């Protein structure tokens, strides 16, 4: 929920503004500010579509291509989820983003004891290829790309996406999946980790390596500054930590003998938008530049297209409040506008009821409509990088670049992101900041409308999505039927081969695809890795 900090005098005149990343904002800006930060058009901005891509990765921005709308969707059984997918596509949504339930994210079958009460609750329950066949039935996978919001077992879901493509008649070289597949951020925030970190990163390396040849239109990782920010990071840290994580994955694949130019162009990012508008815009403009320079200078990336910071810039859940939930509709609209002004390729907005539970069809559609209104009515597709040249925005972009580099240097000095996450450095730092934010809010030093200023008494009623207990029974019955009707020997054989491949340190992806084709379950595949790789142990927090 971070917002800028304001100091006011007794007549409510603003005396000082400090952004979350620690940058002060002045009352007015002019040419002298650009001179003071050493701004140079050619070096710092360049033309849109040209290095260092500060202005946009595309020369004409949204004129040449509208942004993809990709609301996070999934609940209950694959049947319910498929219905919601069809609804969103019928209303003009151009991409899918699958929410999985917690048992699936944790590599447990729906009938596992730890899954009790959670099947289909916060996302779709997936046990085997049968579920993907239902979930993606009737959807043109050559046209619609799919985000798979899952991390610890992302390799399994990517393999299953290839398998479902084959089954439904789509070519693996033409389908486009974007598994989230970012285990390091999962340890920093969100917490759906399973395996020890070294093999978990190796598994990510396998998906990247496999995608180069087998699934060239797939984006094998989507590095999530988003959840790191939700956990308490500042906007500058969000970018710096995401880049640090991305570098860890690049290093893993480079170690296997590949040049970054062969794969880094398919990396995508999932980044967050809430809080101060100017800080968000400066963050993305500076971020595109820092990322491009990082790839060029540190990794010798040559192809300009591989230097693009591409991604989903999404309205953040942490910006939303439980109090006066309708205010979240307004917040979502501004976050969507910030995404557009920042040059996002893909946008999704948290729906106004998400501080309570997952969205109803009505609230999900409202988020989609918010994006469509921005594109069709308000003028967000008119011209590329409309805030360029503003003395304020350009000064702030330079200052944000500096902050991002400082935070990256801090991580590098501590041995890189993998080391910092293993040690718990980043987790301790962001959780401390989250506490300090909440405490400042409570003291009234930071303001959230309807929460600690202009707050109203009483409960606000909203129509909520209802969880249906019957979904779990239905799902478990489906799973048991799959186990009963599949060729059990074939499934066991593929799992054995998977285990051997994992033990030998081979790339496990082709073996996972075989398992999926044989209707091995997510739990069975995940257990192979549990056995071979061992489980992650959290560093001490308190």
């Amino acid at each position: 929920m971070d917002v800028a900090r304001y100091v006011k005098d007794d007549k409510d005149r603003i005396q000082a503004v400090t952004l979350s990343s620690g940058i002060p904002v002045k009352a007015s800006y002019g040419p002298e500010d650009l001179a003071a930060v050493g701004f140079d058009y050619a070096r710092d901005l360049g033309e849109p579509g040209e290095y260092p891509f500060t202005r946009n990765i595309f020369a004409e921005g949204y004129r040449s291509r509208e942004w993809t709308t990709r609301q996070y969707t999934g609940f209950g059984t694959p049947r319910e989820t498929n219905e919601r997918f069809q609804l969103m596509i019928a209303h003009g949504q151009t991409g899918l983003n699958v929410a999985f339930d917690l048992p699936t994210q944790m590599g447990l079958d729906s009938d596992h004891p730890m899954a009790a009460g959670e099947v289909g609750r916060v996302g779709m329950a997936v046990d085997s290829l049968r579920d993907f066949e239902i979930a993606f039935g009737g959807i043109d996978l050559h046209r619609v790309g799919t985000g798979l919001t899952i991390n610890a077992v992302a390799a399994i879901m990517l393999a299953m996406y290839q398998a479902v493509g084959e089954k439904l008649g789509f070519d693996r070289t033409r389908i486009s999946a974007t598994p989230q597949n970012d285990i390091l951020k999962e340890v920093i925030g969100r917490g759906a980790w399973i395996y020890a970190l070294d093999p978990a990163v190796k598994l990510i390396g396998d998906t990247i390596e496999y995608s180069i040849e087998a699934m060239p239109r797939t984006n094998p990782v989507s590095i999530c500054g988003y959840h790191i920010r939700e956990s308490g990071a500042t906007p500058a840290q969000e970018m710096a930590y995401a880049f640090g994580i991305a570098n860890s994955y690049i290093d893993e694949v480079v170690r296997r003998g590949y040049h970054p130019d062969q794969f880094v162009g398919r990396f995508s990012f999932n980044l967050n938008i809430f809080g101060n508008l100017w800080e968000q815009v400066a963050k993305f403009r500076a971020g595109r530049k820092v990322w491009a320079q990082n790839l060029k200078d540190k990794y010798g990336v040559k192809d300009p297209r591989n230097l693009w910071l591409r991604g989903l810039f999404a309205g953040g859940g942490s910006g939303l409040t439980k109090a006066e939930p309708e205010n979240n509709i307004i917040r979502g609209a501004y976050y969507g506008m910030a995404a557009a002004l920042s040059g996002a390729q893909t946008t999704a907005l948290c729906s106004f009821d998400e501080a309570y539970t997952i969205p109803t069809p009505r609230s999900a559609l409202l988020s989609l409509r918010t994006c469509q209104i921005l594109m069709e009515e308000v003028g967000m597709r008119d011209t590329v990088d409309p805030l360029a040249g503003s003395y304020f925005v350009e000064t702030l972009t330079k200052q944000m670049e500096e902050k991002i580099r400082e935070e990256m240097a801090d991580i590098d000095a501590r041995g890189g992101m993998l080391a910092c996450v293993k040690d718990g450095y980043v987790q301790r730092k962001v959780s401390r900041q989250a506490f300090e934010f909440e405490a400042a809010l409570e003291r009234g030093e930071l303001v959230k409308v309807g929460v600690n200023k202009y707050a109203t008494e009483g409960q606000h009623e909203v129509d909520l999505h209802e969880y249906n207990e019957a979904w779990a029974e239905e799902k478990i019955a489906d799973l048991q039927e799959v186990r009963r009707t599949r060729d059990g020997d074939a499934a066991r054989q593929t799992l054995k081969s998977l285990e051997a491949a994992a033990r030998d340190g081979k790339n496990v992806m082709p073996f996972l695809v075989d398992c999926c084709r044989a209707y091995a379950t997510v739990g069975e595949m995940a257990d192979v890795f549990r056995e071979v790789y061992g489980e992650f142990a959290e560093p001490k927090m308190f």
Partner: protein
Amino acid sequence: MNRTIKVLVAKPGLDGHDRGAKVIAHALKEAGMEVVYTGLHQSVEAVVQAAVQEDVDVVGLSILTGGHLPICRKLMALLAEQGAGDKLVCVGGVIPSRDFEALRALGVKGIFPGGTPLSETVAFIRQHVASG
């Protein structure tokens, strides 16, 4: 009272969204309490075992998935079984007001839905541990 209040901050179940749990742990520590944090993905059995072993005064659960009723039902039963039914049990997270009554009926004393001021939670624990 002079003795330090000891609180178990627990994340039962599969959910890993732990910002809230960690924020409240920081707040309780700042308020001078001793905090034991279970870490993620804990079974209810493991939470109860930790509560008994650490001999805490308070068991604080952070639950965001909507599974708070079955989790609390099981936790209260297991605590009673272990002769630890006297511990102050609190729950925070995404807890709709329509479930408050059912939670209280189970014996959950403190209910702190998202947005509850930290100071309110701290004061509640102080008051109830002191008077209990």
